[in-house]
């Protein structure tokens, strides 16, 4: 009976957040349709050649309307007609509408499929529709679902037309409306219409969109309309901004917002902060046993730093990250009792729990909204709105504020790493300045210091000892491997990480370096390295940067239009010692020393023979955290190429005279 049950459906639209957190309705594009004229035809021949350039998909029409009938009621309508030029645009044959079961019924999607001449081939049938759960990665449960329509055809080009209407008892507006849904997509016509109740306004910010909206007031509603024509396709350039920053968009927030029973406005960051503060107020009462436990833990401590460290360690031992989001649970935290009972919670609940425990010993703290991830999108500080997906805790102290990542089981207190450092956050508090930045780190704090000893034999094989001390951002992987993987898995991780021709691992260790200013881990290993040097007759060919790393190449240099983003400030320092087999001398060596220096980074490599006959190779690479204008492309490429070339230099050893 179950021969034809579909397996799980592919989810192939771009979805922005991995932990929804408080990401306020920054969902997918949503849409509109009314009666439209029958004279429209979708012949591919009618598309302007300019719109086909660099495009896999030409959006013929994309009409979206949001009609708010109150703060918490409304309807979205969308109609999308897209011509798919080739297989790379196939994802547009699938139409997805996200919805939340608590607030909406499943939307009804209709669709049609046309051939290249614009002739109707077929209509969307119920068998082309699927309703699937859309729980984001890292979450145990959410009420999010997605309704999916699919019209697949095998002969390109073809055109799909979709439309749907959906009512909701929730916040209706998404955080932003994107003119294009991705790269290599051009647009003939895109419109956005937002109908606000007459008593309300729409706050908006246009990014990459120039034309101001048309305004209209009729009876019950105040309307804002945008219309964009003939928008060419965009391509993403290497090491450039994220898709989200690249695509033109309109950011939107209604002048009145309501979540559950909480009402407010986002006309300033202070108001935004107050709203979420109040929504989460009164959830910090601790169970009596816990209150006593916390006081007992801190009984002998006077330094607030020690109290923070002690309670943070207690949190890390007693709880773990589990995300369950039902109803407005995406925005409102579970209370401290819930975490105490279950020993788990999501980022909001764990942060609230930590905050409650600190308050118990007289240390005030603020839950802080942040966009987590090592490559965050641009932040619009002039547009108070939810640009966040995560919560951390800020413990303010005179000149020495401590930040706590409450979902981590192994971070030391105060360490944020590339996940949340150096960016804007909003502190949740009843009043006062709320928009602040998390601290920035320097390359010296994010360092890998590596010492390698290589004992070469005359076959080119080697006995190799490596000691690598990693700190800051560069320790993340090591501490993660140590806590998450079994010893066997750690060894296979190490095997994959060693970039050498062929080897057997003879011994290895991985451990924390205690009492370091920034978190630091040490990895050591010993290898029996085969073919460490190439051997031909009387000569050995050695690449002294034996365990090196290869740098990415920068593409899209000529005619570059997008900035170059260097996300991580890091410093790599290597010393490699070589002991040569008896009777070998240096026949030739590369053009050492080599130095390359730019504002965004510096490299140095040198090679010398010591008095005891050993050879020493040193290498240092330092990269800054910077955003460079497109005109820097040539310099960045040259910098990377010079380093790649220098890293490949070889030394030739010869036996005899």
């Amino acid at each position: 009976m179950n021969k034809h049950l579909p397996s799980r459906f592919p989810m192939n639209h771009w979805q922005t957040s991995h932990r929804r957190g408080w990401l306020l309705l920054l969902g997918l594009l949503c849409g509109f349709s009314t009666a439209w004229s029958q004279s429209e035809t979708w012949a591919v021949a009618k598309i302007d050649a300019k719109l086909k350039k660099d495009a896999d998909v030409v959006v013929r029409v994309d009409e979206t309307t949001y009609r708010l009938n109150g703060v918490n009621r409304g309807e979205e309508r969308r109609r999308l007609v897209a011509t798919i030029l080739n297989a790379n645009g196939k994802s547009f044959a699938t139409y997805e509408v996200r919805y939340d079961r608590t607030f909406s019924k499943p939307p009804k999607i209709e669709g049609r499929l046309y051939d290249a001449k614009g002739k109707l081939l077929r209509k969307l049938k119920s068998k082309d529709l699927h309703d699937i759960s859309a729980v984001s990665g890292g979450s145990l449960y959410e009420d999010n679902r997605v309704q999916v329509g699919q019209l697949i055809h095998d002969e390109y080009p073809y055109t799909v037309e979709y439309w749907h209407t959906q009512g909701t008892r929730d916040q209706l507006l998404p955080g932003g409306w994107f003119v294009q849904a991705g790269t290599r997509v051009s647009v003939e016509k895109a419109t956005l219409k937002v109908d606000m109740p007459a008593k309300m306004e729409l706050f908006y910010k246009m990014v990459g969109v120039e034309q101001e909206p048309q305004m209209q007031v009729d009876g019950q509603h105040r309307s804002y309309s945008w219309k964009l024509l003939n928008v060419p396709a965009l391509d993403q350039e290497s090491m450039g901004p994220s898709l989200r920053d690249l695509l033109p968009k309109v950011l939107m927030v209604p002048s009145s917002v309501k979540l559950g029973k909480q009402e407010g406005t986002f006309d300033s960051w202070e108001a935004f902060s107050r709203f979420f503060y109040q929504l989460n107020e009164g959830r910090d009462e601790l169970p009596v046993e816990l209150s006593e436990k916390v006081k007992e833990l801190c009984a002998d401590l006077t330094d607030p730093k020690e109290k923070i460290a002690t309670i943070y360690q207690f949190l890390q031992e007693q709880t773990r990250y589990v995300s369950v989001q039902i109803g407005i649970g995406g925005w409102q935290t579970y209370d401290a009792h819930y975490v105490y009972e279950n020993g788990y919670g999501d980022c909001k609940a764990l942060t609230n729990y930590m905050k409650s425990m600190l308050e118990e010993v007289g240390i005030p703290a603020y839950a802080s909204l942040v966009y987590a991830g090592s490559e965050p999108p641009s932040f619009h500080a002039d547009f108070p709105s939810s640009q966040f997906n995560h919560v951390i805790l800020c413990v303010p102290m005179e000149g020495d504020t401590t930040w706590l990542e409450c979902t981590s089981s192994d971070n030391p207190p105060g360490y944020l790493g590339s996940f949340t450092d150096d960016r804007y956050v909003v502190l949740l508090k009843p009043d006062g300045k709320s928009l602040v930045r998390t601290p920035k780190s320097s390359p010296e704090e994010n360092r890998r210091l590596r010492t390698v000893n290589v004992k070469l034999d005359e076959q080119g094989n080697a006995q190799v000892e490596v000691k690598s001390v990693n700190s800051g951002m560069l320790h993340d992987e090591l501490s993660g491997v140590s806590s998450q993987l079994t010893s066997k898995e750690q060894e296979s991780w190490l095997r994959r990480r060693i970039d050498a021709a062929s080897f057997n691992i003879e011994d290895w260790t991985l451990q924390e370096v205690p009492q370091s200013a920034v978190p630091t881990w040490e990895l050591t290993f010993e290898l029996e390295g085969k073919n460490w040097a190439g051997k031909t007759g009387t000569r050995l060919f050695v690449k002294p940067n034996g365990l090196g790393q290869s740098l990415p190449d920068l593409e899209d240099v000529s005619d570059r239009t997008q900035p170059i983003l260097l996300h991580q400030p890091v410093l790599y320092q290597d010393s490699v010692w070589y002991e040569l087999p008896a009777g070998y001398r240096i026949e030739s060596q590369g053009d050492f020393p080599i130095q390359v220096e730019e504002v965004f980074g510096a490299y140095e490599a040198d090679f010398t023979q010591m008095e005891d006959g050993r050879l020493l190779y040193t290498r240092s690479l330092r990269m800054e955290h910077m955003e460079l204008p497109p005109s820097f492309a040539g310099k960045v490429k040259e910098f990377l190429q010079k380093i790649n070339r220098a890293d490949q230099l070889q030394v030739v050893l010869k036996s005899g005279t």
Partner: protein
Amino acid sequence: MKALSCSLLVGIGLLLPAILFGQVRKEKFGKVSTDDVRMESYAEDPEAGAVVLYEEGSVSYRYVGQDLQQTLKIHRRVKILGEGGLEYADVSIPYLAYRGYEGVTNIKAMTHYVDESGKVQSQKISKSDILDEDVNGQYHLKKFSFPNARVGAVLEFSYQKSSKDFVSLPTWVFQEQIPVAHSQYITNVIKGFDYRNVVMGGSYPIQRSQEGGTLNLGSAGMMNTTRTSYVCQNIPALVKEPYVSSLSNYFYRVELQLQGVYMPGFSEKDYLKSWNQLAKQMMKDEDFGEHLESSKAVKEVVPGLLAEAGEDTLARIQALYEWTQKNTDWDDREGKYANVKEKVLLKEGKGNGTSINILLINLLREAGFQADPVLVSTRENGLPQSIFPTLRQFNHTIVAVDLGKESPLLLDAQSGLTPYDMLPMQDLNGMGMRVTETGATWIPVEPTHANQTIIQLLAELSADGQLTSSQTFQHKGYACLTARKEAMAADDEQTFLSETLQEGFNEVELSETALELGESRSDPLVTTCQLSTSDFVQKAGEFIYLEPMLHQATDENPFKLEKRSYPVNFGAPISERYILTLKLPEGYTVEEAPEPTRVSLPEGAGSFQYQVMAMGNQLQVMSEIKVNKIEFSPNEYGQIRQLFDMIVAKHAEQVVLTKAVESAQDDSNE
């Protein structure tokens, strides 16, 4: 075929009734021993992040209304030993909710842990924290997370899963990616239902015992039953290793299949007796056998295609195959049953692989060929077995057509990129079952093409270390299929060419790049270009050092593990040939060059040949790697690893050139 039968011998064994009496344990929910809660590491595997202390599955039956349902009760205890084991605290139980086919009820979960004061605590999960996720309207998940889960805790849960399918018994998997201390499976089946068991994936001692029992079916009265138990202890964790078609092949498990029903009221005494009966059943199926009848469209199109193809048998088969490819598109679904009728397939142009291949059979039969469907299990789906009859293992259908030779030609038109006489890599999984009206025949499913590349360079080296060359790169067989897929996925031809041609270089300038796709899918894919680079050449004083394998050097042994516990499978033979003809710069001679080498693995399983020859001012470099055998057992792993070590060593060798005249002058100056 040889390789496969070997692994079958290792992998599958029939369980004989154990003489030893099974040590079935009886554990009560919630009664976890203090020793288990206080235990700090698992002696059998001290590194494990978690261990399954105890798991029981027991199968029984009950009446729900008019329906007889099967129930599977699960009771499981997992001990968390390290932070990596905490993932076992999040539980998802999948079930098929579609039309109430399956249901999961009576979920109980409890965390047992030692609290700060050193006392053992047990905490139950509350009903409201057990969630039901509707995955796609058909499959659902019961989800929950253990409260206060922490390192050291014992996580215990139990549930009951009911199924309307009371005939097939669930497969029981003893092994996991963490060690299992004790696992038992108990089936209490109605007497007269005769099941055969097959143990797959490993060899650990199982204690099996059988006894008579009874089952109270309420109003249906008491039934006599057969109670069988399987107990297995101390099963090590199965660790992932690279180059394996599917890890699921290797989990140690017992599969049970109904062999016959011997009881009054059942007319068909043998429920599933033989492969022949299964074949006949498939032939009668409305989504398989009934599709084997040409539609009007097929009858109309065949004469024209044959007339165009001419008299040659293979040309005719090719024409019919290519017509099928052109007129159908795979819908990304799999299955051994056709999911669309032939008429719909031809009208809408899409269907699953079985639908497409049944269309091809109809075309071939219409053209007078003897063609039949062959049921297969794809590489990802796991190895097929021919020992006990079951259809469950198959997930795809291909085509066998007789050519009057010993073995038939196998075809699969699902992909639009394969030539007619080549099966996609995913089909190459040892064997398949040919299905005809009269019965079933097992036939080998083996590659007829290799993964083959030939690269030729005609180059010139200048005295300042610049290398310029013309390059012709041919991809044949599976290498051609891979390259075609990449070319299709690229934004355009130029992007594909510049990406593939730059591979292996640090800096290279390319010109006159061209791509030849050939006229048919059987033709090789060829790229040609002119290139100029200073990579692979280092100039130092009177010397020029040259890496003669250029960008084609195998610089890492792909087999990094010292030992393996399951086989390496290449899917198809490999053949890589490299030829460089290099004109040396004026006045330079070869001072030192790699020695030629030739190594072969036993029984022609693989070989490596390499030589560098200097002739006048020209250098000839030749390298050829061949792997003829498809599967290497863990015992043979050392051979293949060593072969690649030799290749890496040879490919790392360099040619030393010296400027003859000037160096002589230098010497005289000194």
